[in-house]
């Protein structure tokens, strides 16, 4: 199949899936089969695109021109491939998980759920493949809107409040900062294309570029850089598969992916390192990492803790993107994948616990490991990956990020990353450990795991954490080809 057809296929498949799901809404088994098949096909088509994506900048694929001189268009490049691969692969896993979760938790409006989910994935892939800032922005906003019904899925007051914060923060940042930054960039440079080495090329003075950098960093609210992180904990009112895929992978990663793309392809590393504004943003990212970890420690609700942990981990990627050194960018790109596998595992576990026991608070989970050993083991593995301990994938991204801060001459940031790892231990590990070892006098409990699709999904992602440790080479190559390193 031609490359153009494949790209369109990859984006259109989930859209078509959404329509099919809508049509099959009355027969749950068929509906879920459609979701799974669509997921599989989407992943396959992304996979088929891989050679093209690795070969550097592919030809542009224009499909609309919403503004004269500016087009909505797709173009493959390594970072987008990386993101698309992760999102489409984890969609399959999450679909498997959702089947267990949604049925197990007896959620309502499941059809709407699957429709919006497919839409969100389509838009995520749109973000991944976008060839210019405008396309990216369009899909970015569409993603916000398509996930809103998912966040507010429960439809009660709490969901409404959560959804309000979610939409409020994401729209505010994108309208108030991201959009003007895009327009300003366009008026300065006359283009919005992603180009290796950036598009400023000495056109603008450092004040303007610095201001733009700050606008972009805060404008991409999905990257959850403090103080615009509030939406992420609020989004936790959503059903867990949503939190898992969207708020640990697709949506937040769309944010940091956008930032990474902007630093690499709009500003360019050479320009970025000269900016004073970059140093400012680096330290804000560092502060975001630490503060979010500290807040995470104070949260007793499991999903809230994971949400703050996500905020902190997103700071890693923002940090790497802003470091703009080869290792920093590699680390940031790799962390997109590493964190995706680790955090999705953790969310899967949180959901499994909820489905099996209806427990949401950490303090209720002591000794739970005896009833749900598999879940808790997966949680342990996911935690290790988030902390960045061998033998889990998180080690490598931390390695590159630390090397990146060293290359950039910011030893303090290396310290931040180290302290953050320790904080991660403090807030993540107690959960599985107390699950396994606390309250041993209460006698053995009866094994009561979540439905099997949930377990299968958890198994896949936690195995992924290990696989990424022992075979990081493809991922590394993909990430490294971003700055023209070893292919």
């Amino acid at each position, binding site marked *: 199949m031609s490359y153009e057809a494949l790209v369109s296929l990859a984006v259109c498949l989930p859209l078509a899936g959404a329509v099919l799901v809508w049509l099959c809404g009355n027969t749950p088994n068929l509906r879920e089969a459609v979701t799974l098949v669509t997921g599989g096909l989407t992943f396959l088509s992304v996979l088929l695109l891989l050679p093209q994506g690795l070969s550097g900048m592919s030809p542009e694929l224009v499909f609309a*021109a919403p503004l004269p001189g500016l087009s909505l268009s797709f173009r493959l490049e390594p970072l987008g491939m990386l993101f698309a691969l992760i999102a489409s692969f984890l969609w399959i896993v999450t679909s498997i998980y959702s089947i267990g979760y949604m049925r197990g938790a007896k959620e309502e409006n499941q059809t709407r759920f699957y429709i919006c989910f497919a839409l969100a994935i389509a838009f995520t892939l749109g973000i991944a493949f976008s060839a210019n800032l*405008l396309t990216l922005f*369009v899909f970015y906003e569409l993603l916000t809107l398509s996930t809103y019904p998912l966040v507010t899925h429960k439809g009660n007051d709490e969901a409404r409040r959560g959804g309000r914060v979610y*939409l409020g923060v994401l729209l505010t940042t994108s*309208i108030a900062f991201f*959009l003007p930054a895009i327009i300003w960039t366009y008026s300065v440079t006359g283009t919005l294309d992603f180009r290796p080495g950036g598009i400023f090329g000495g056109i603008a003075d450092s004040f303007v570029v610095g201001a733009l950098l700050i606008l972009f960093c805060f404008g991409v609210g999905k990257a959850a850089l403090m103080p615009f992180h509030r939406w992420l904990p609020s989004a936790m009112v959503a059903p867990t598969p949503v939190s898992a895929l969207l708020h640990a992978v697709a949506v937040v990663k769309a944010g940091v992916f956008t930032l990474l793309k902007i630093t690499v392809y709009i500003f360019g590393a050479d320009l970025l390192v000269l900016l004073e504004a970059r140093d400012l943003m680096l330290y804000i990212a560092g502060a975001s990492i630490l503060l979010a970890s500290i807040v995470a420690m104070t949260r007793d609700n499991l999903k809230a803790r994971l949400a703050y942990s996500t905020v902190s981990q997103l700071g890693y990627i923002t940090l790497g993107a802003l470091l703009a050194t080869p290792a920093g960018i590699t680390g940031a790109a790799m962390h997109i994948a590493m964190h995706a596998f680790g955090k999705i595992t953790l969310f899967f576990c949180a959901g499994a616990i909820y489905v099996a026991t209806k427990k949401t608070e950490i303090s209720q989970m002591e000794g739970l490991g005896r009833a749900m050993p598999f879940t808790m083991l997966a949680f342990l593995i996911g935690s290790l990956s988030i902390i960045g301990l061998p033998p889990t994938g998180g080690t490598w991204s931390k390695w590159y990020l630390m090397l990146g801060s060293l290359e950039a001459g910011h030893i303090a940031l290396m310290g931040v990353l180290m302290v953050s790892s320790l904080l991660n231990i403090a807030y993540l590990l107690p959960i599985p450990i107390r699950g396994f070892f606390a309250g041993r006098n209460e006698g053995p409990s009866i094994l009561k795991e979540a439905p099997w699709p949930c377990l299968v999904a958890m198994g896949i992602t936690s195995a992924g954490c290990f696989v990424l440790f022992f075979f990081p080479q493809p991922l590394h190559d993909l990430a490294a080809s971003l700055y023209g390193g070893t292919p």
Partner: protein
Amino acid sequence: MMSAIFANLPALQVILPLLFAPICFLLRKRGAAWLLAFCVSLCTFAVSIALFMQVSAAGPLSYAMGGWDPPWGIEYRVDSFNAPFLVLLSLMFCVTLAFSYKSVEKEIVQPRHALFYSAFMLCVAGLLGIVITGDAFNVFVFLEISSLSSYILISFGKDRRALTAAFQYLIMGTIGATFLLIGIGFIYMMTGTLNMADLAVRLPSVMDTHTVRAAFAFIIVGMSIKVALFPLHVWLPNAYGYAPSAASVFLAATSTKVSLYVLIRFTFTVFGAGFAFGAMPLQPILLVLAVTAVFVGSLSAIFQTNIKHVLAYSSVAQIGYMVIGFALASHAGLSAGILHMFNHAVMKGCLFLVAGCVFYRFRSARIEDFRGLGKTMPWTMGAFVVGGLGLIGMPLTAGFVSKWYLIMAALDHGFVGFLIIAAVLAGSLLAVAYVWRIVEVAYFQAPDEVHENGKEAPFILLVPAWFMALLTLYIGIDPSLVVGAAESAALSLLGSTP
């Protein structure tokens, strides 16, 4: 025959609705009146399209009314600035009529139906006349025709407050029209001509006189009332809020735009940008008022309880955007302003149509009526969401395009530009607030007993609403037509000044 029609298109444009209005009244029967009006609207639309094509192919078109050559006779002049307005007006004419068949049946007592249609046609004729004419006094005449008929339209509202609103509008509209008349009188006094093109030639020699300056002031203030520019917007919410749905759809989409058209026409074509923005401090005054309008309008919209009022206040804010574009007086700014006039007409038309659908079901359009509509009236709410996203300025909707151009234009203006951008973006955010407030009610609140049995609006009402919604999306995805029209309009305006 065909060639005769083609030669007289400009006249037909106005005369068709003007002529058939009394006939419509005479028909008395509801169905027949509607059918006639609808046929006329289709013809009008065809004429406007033809005119538009002609202008874009062959340049400005001058038509001497009654064979009297300008500047003595009345000249109808179609150029790339007003041709798209003609299309817009006649398009809204069609859409509103399509909508009104069911809506008017419900909202207006039976014997007055034919009256409504004829008043409506008169109003359209007046607005078309304002746009098409090249004669200053003729503008006043058509303005009065359209105003008087719109007072009637508003007073048809079933709510008793509609009468008060109409009366209020009458007072204000009359003041505005009188001011316009005073202004036109002054310049006639100084130049002895009423033809706009002729005025543009003669005015520069008497530019420095107090009389011309006073004339300009009167025209600006007078038309500001009709435009509903802050702080002269007070008549607008009630007029739109209590009018019958069909009337509010049409008025919201067109009447303020036409007034703004007049303002721009006088400023650029008659007085000239050099005079208006060079000799007079028009820019700062307008910018301050427009930015204030954005804030006041949006904030007021947030706290309203009636959807029509929300939309009306939102219009006040959106008019602020248009005036900002106009006040920037650059090519980019002017095209952004004109672009937003079209886009806003489409989006606000869509939203008022939705309000009309809800009104049709529940006989009111308060926020409470929207409870649970996400479930009971999914298609109606779908159109509302699309229109609302347009107001917010989401990408792939018309609102995004105008916002983009407005910000691009403001970027050329240094620090003031940044303030304007801030205001525009703040307005967008406030739009999120007032739109999402309604969306939340519709999708999250359970309907009470009255609304539980709500059904989807009739198909015939949904078609126009969705037509406008799709148009909003279409402009968002492929705006080249609208943007092209706006840009050539701006070019023709700026190019016509020395």
